[in-house]
């Protein structure tokens, strides 16, 4: 564990402490901070968080492993999460899921992208929907999916890809 990570974690926890009245309330926010900042929540990070919050590591671990959001390993550079719940599925999100998967013959996509099926994203009125690294894309069709993927490949800002 390098000192820089330790420092950032301590700083974050320090800032939050006054806001929350119990230490255990800091577990979820801190895990999230770690995941977003370092791209994973591995055992080393859990030990550090445990020390800083003075909560047994096993408790932090069981929380971290319960939630999809926290990953043990580094995740892909571009995480595509496509909603396959009912409203999106009624409007063809399964086609999009297959369509994106078919693109995985492209070396660049194979190495840098992951695609997963996820539950409802709260965008059912603008279905089909997907997230790319947490950024929401709605009203999807093949053409818009192509534009998103091409945009990512050319290194565009995710927020700005579809204008």
């Amino acid at each position: 564990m390098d000192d820089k990570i330790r420092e950032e974690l301590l700083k974050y926890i320090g800032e939050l402490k006054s806001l929350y009245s119990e230490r255990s309330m800091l577990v979820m926010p801190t895990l999230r901070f770690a995941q977003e900042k370092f791209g994973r929540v591995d055992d080393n990070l859990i030990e550090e968080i445990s020390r800083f919050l003075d909560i047994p590591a096993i408790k932090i671990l069981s929380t971290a492993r319960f939630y999809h959001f926290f990953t043990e390993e580094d995740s892909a550079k571009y995480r595509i999460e496509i909603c396959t719940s009912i409203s999106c599925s009624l409007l063809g999100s399964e086609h999009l899921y297959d369509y994106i998967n078919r693109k995985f013959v492209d070396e660049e996509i194979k190495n840098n992208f992951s695609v997963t099926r996820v539950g409802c994203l709260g965008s059912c009125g603008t279905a089909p929907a997907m997230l790319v690294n947490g950024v929401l894309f709605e009203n999807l069709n093949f053409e818009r999916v192509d534009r998103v993927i091409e945009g990512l490949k050319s290194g565009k800002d995710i927020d700005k890809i579809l204008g």
Partner: protein
Amino acid sequence: MVRILTKYWDEKDSHRIDVELRYGGYESAKKALSLEPYEVIEEVKRAKLRGRGGAGFPTGQKWSFIKNDNKPHYLVVNADEGEPGTFKDRYIMERSPHMLIEGMIIASYAIRAEMAFVYIRGEFQKAYERMKLALEEAMDRGLIGDSVLGSKYKLKIVIIRGAGAYICGEETALIESIEGKPGRPRLRPPFPAVSGLYSNPTIVNNVETIALVPSIFEFGAEKFLSFGTPTDGGTKLFCVSGHVKRPGLYELPMGTNLKEIIFEHAGGIISDGRLKAVLPGGSSTPIISAEECDVNMDFDCMKGVGSMLGSGAIIVMDDRTCMVKALKSLLEFYAEESCGQCTPCREGCPWIYKITKRIENGTAEFKDIDLLLDVAENIMGNTICPLGDAAALPTISIVNKFRDEFEEHIRRKGCYFDNLPLAPVLEGRSMV
């Protein structure tokens, strides 16, 4: 037609404090704070506001369960919106977060809480950013904090973000999550109002419920009640999705007719197809067929047709929809989201998902249909939280109402419906 929650959503920057104040924001909280807490609760009871999180529990009555003791009390706003088909709370937080904060002030005051939480679903980025900004604006102007609106009342509001677990929308799982634990629902009783967050009295309410509270004090309970039905006060945000021409969010009187919502407000069925079935209150409510859609959308009338108002998420299916496939999509979700602590749910949800998959891909036998029903019926009522029921209810209703389609899949060894095409270009979408 009266609009409460969506009143100024067309305004630019409707999420900022200036717009809110221009529309009389925080005036209702001032009124409420001039009353005694019990008087606030009485007013909410008279308005017959019922919880918008799914169960329709009377809000004033829930608040009155909080005893006047010396323990810390908490208000928790459930913003973990995740039920497939539902997209209202996200928009409330994005478009009028101050309405929610004002409602939180009134609710917290009524239950004597000095700390309140908003538990926001982890995936909601914009909603989080806007809630955060709104809380900062409210702090800066002394609307919350050590002296709420210049009174002696203190209130701290903090945000907790979820991390991708649907089950945390269940109120006791949500409490566990705030406490830094895995989101596994607790056994009840005790109910949160008696022993909730850190074993202290806690009220959990949905975003829409709390955001409606200020309007009770703006209009008065009687007027608020008159916006809805005699047993269900106020307006309701209906989330219309699926095969309609104008999907979107519609704020309408509680009790609006379902057919009217689908055919008038949402423009009818796409490609001028025919209506086949509707999940009227989100993915966990029993399905109703096209013939049953002439029904008023309020908590009691929906019970009358054997379904539920749920979260007010109206999922519309046209006659090209394969019901086996639709059920498969519903069950994939619940199988994935079971928290795993009750055997019937942990084992049963993936099991009924697999059976449905077999029927869809043509490897099932006729007896599988009864097995599907049997497993679903044995999940019902045998679990700690209602997630198990949420998977079983639509299953039982879909199989019973569309059994011929299930049999036909088995007879023809697979799905005989054309794959539904991708979303068509729509006439327009309504977010108000």
